């Protein structure tokens, strides 16, 4: 079976102020299989967010190749890469990422706006997803009227609006309380099982590992351990 995302020989270095470069990633080979729920853990600075950014085309690798659905994403133009990202990926970031001046419904529909295709069912789809995350009654609200946890739920809805095949979550619950964190994780589990969504989630919270079907431990910019987790989906 073709992996949803395939990384080969990935390295990512940043130039420091004193011109010395820092290798955030080196020698990373990784296949994220279709319908996997991959949980990536590691200490701060180990490269897990960089790995997610490189895999999704948000950061350019210094070396190696990234293949998404069989396409080498760094052999295509920026416009094509943006389109591929729009069609196949959904993102949940650690920081508040809703657009302040847009309503919840408008925020959820943003990926549809960038798809370049008319979506007559866009508003309907947005409302359904807001229902899924428990905010169907607040479609016209603005982000500032919501708590951090509620905003993160809207971000999850936005990540799903384009019916992506891959959901990338970078520390999605790090700023949330336990109850809200559990709500977010339950949504992830639900869409993973019901919609057969591939999920790659970065977290430093080891208590979230059981939600995944596979656990990747990173350290010093490379994969330290890689294995299936018997506590799949938090059961």
């Amino acid at each position: 079976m073709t992996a949803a995302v395939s990384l080969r020989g990935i390295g990512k270095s940043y130039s420091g102020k004193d011109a010395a470069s820092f290798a955030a990633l080196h020698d990373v080979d990784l296949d994220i299989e279709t319908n996997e729920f991959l949980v990536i853990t590691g200490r701060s600075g180990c490269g897990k967010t960089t790995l997610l950014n490189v895999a999704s085309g948000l950061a350019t690798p210094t070396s190696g190749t990234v293949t998404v659905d069989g396409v080498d994403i760094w052999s295509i133009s920026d416009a094509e890469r943006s389109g591929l990202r729009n069609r196949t990926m959904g993102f949940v970031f650690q920081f508040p990422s809703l657009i302040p001046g847009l309503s919840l419904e408008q925020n959820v529909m943003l990926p549809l706006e960038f798809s370049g295709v008319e979506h007559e069912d866009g508003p309907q789809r947005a409302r359904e997803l807001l229902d899924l995350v428990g905010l169907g009654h607040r479609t016209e609200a603005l982000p500032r009227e919501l708590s951090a946890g509620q905003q993160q739920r809207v971000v999850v809805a936005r990540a799903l609006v384009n019916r992506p095949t891959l959901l990338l979550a970078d520390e999605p619950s790090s700023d949330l309380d336990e109850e809200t964190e559990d709500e977010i994780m339950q949504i992830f589990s639900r869409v993973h099982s019901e919609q057969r969504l591939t999920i790659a989630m970065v977290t430093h919270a080891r208590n979230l590992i059981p939600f995944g079907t596979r656990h990747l431990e990173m350290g010093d910019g490379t994969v330290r351990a890689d294995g299936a987790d018997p506590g799949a989906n938090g059961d």
Partner: protein
Amino acid sequence: MVLTTVIISRGGQDSLRLARERLGADVVVVPRGSVTGVEGALLLGNATNTYMPRGVVDRITAVPGVAQASSQLYLTSMANSSCCSVSTMFMFAFDPVTDFTVEPWLQEKLGHDLQVGQAVGGADVFVPEGQDKIKLYGYDFDLVGNLERTGTNLDQTLFMTFPSAYAMQEISKTKAKMALPLLTDTVSSVLVKVDQGADRTQVAQAITDAVPEVQAVPAAEMFGSYGDQISGVLRTLVVIVVLTVALSLALMAVIFLMSVHDRRRQIGVLRALGATQRFVMLAYMTEASVLAVAGGLAGAVLAVVVVYFFHDLLVSALGFTILLPSVLSMIVLVVVGLLVALVVAAAAAIVPALRASREEPAVSMRE
């Protein structure tokens, strides 16, 4: 700033051009040493007593190269008088037999010469409300028409024939509060048409040589001091405008850089969701354009208000007349001003917009 400068410069130059055209002459002859005074009287309405013996007219006519010569007399100016329809009205008398400035207009518009007791006004002269004539020094004038606007003192001038002026003087002795101080057998200026093919400058020099008590100036050089003044003021204004535009450009560039910096993370998120580099560029350039149009319109309105409502103050401060543009010209100038604003805003925004669009989304989203 740009729009105001353009209005002032064009208005000043148009005003001078129309004043020269209104003279209708190739050469203007005035008493020696009074060119500046005559220019000030014609353009700005400055009081002047410039007189020379009527006998110079025949001597001027005899100069080789002179085809026609017609005399004019500056009668007086009246400020805030009950008779007058404008704040300050000036009176000119002309010789209806030899005149070639007002007469052609009279023939075209009225089909006849001015009769005694009739007068033609500049653009701003009108019969006071409730009256059917303009009464000056106890003498009633029929206002038979108005000349086109020049933006100069000529717009507040009443033109009459010498016979009408003398009739008014006679009546003033008994019916006016003060008799009209009119010197008979005197003229203030002589307008000259040269022979076809004759050199205006040479004819002017010949007149000055033949009649030493006068000064002859080619009409094209008339108001030369005011032309220099306009140029001087414009040079200063241009420097100020250039500096202002440069400073605006720099400030706007800083503001756009700050705006991009403040929204870096937001741009990164939009890029992650599928926005292209082109989208980001377009968004910023559109924002810059909207700001430019809004600011440009506000500036245009301010320029129009300043120039129209403070016109007299500007004329007084700058020392030259300004012909205000027509509505169509103003629209064109406003459009040009908006284009300038758009270019400046685009120049200020393009580097920050390019940087924002080309930055890696992951870098943009980093705290």
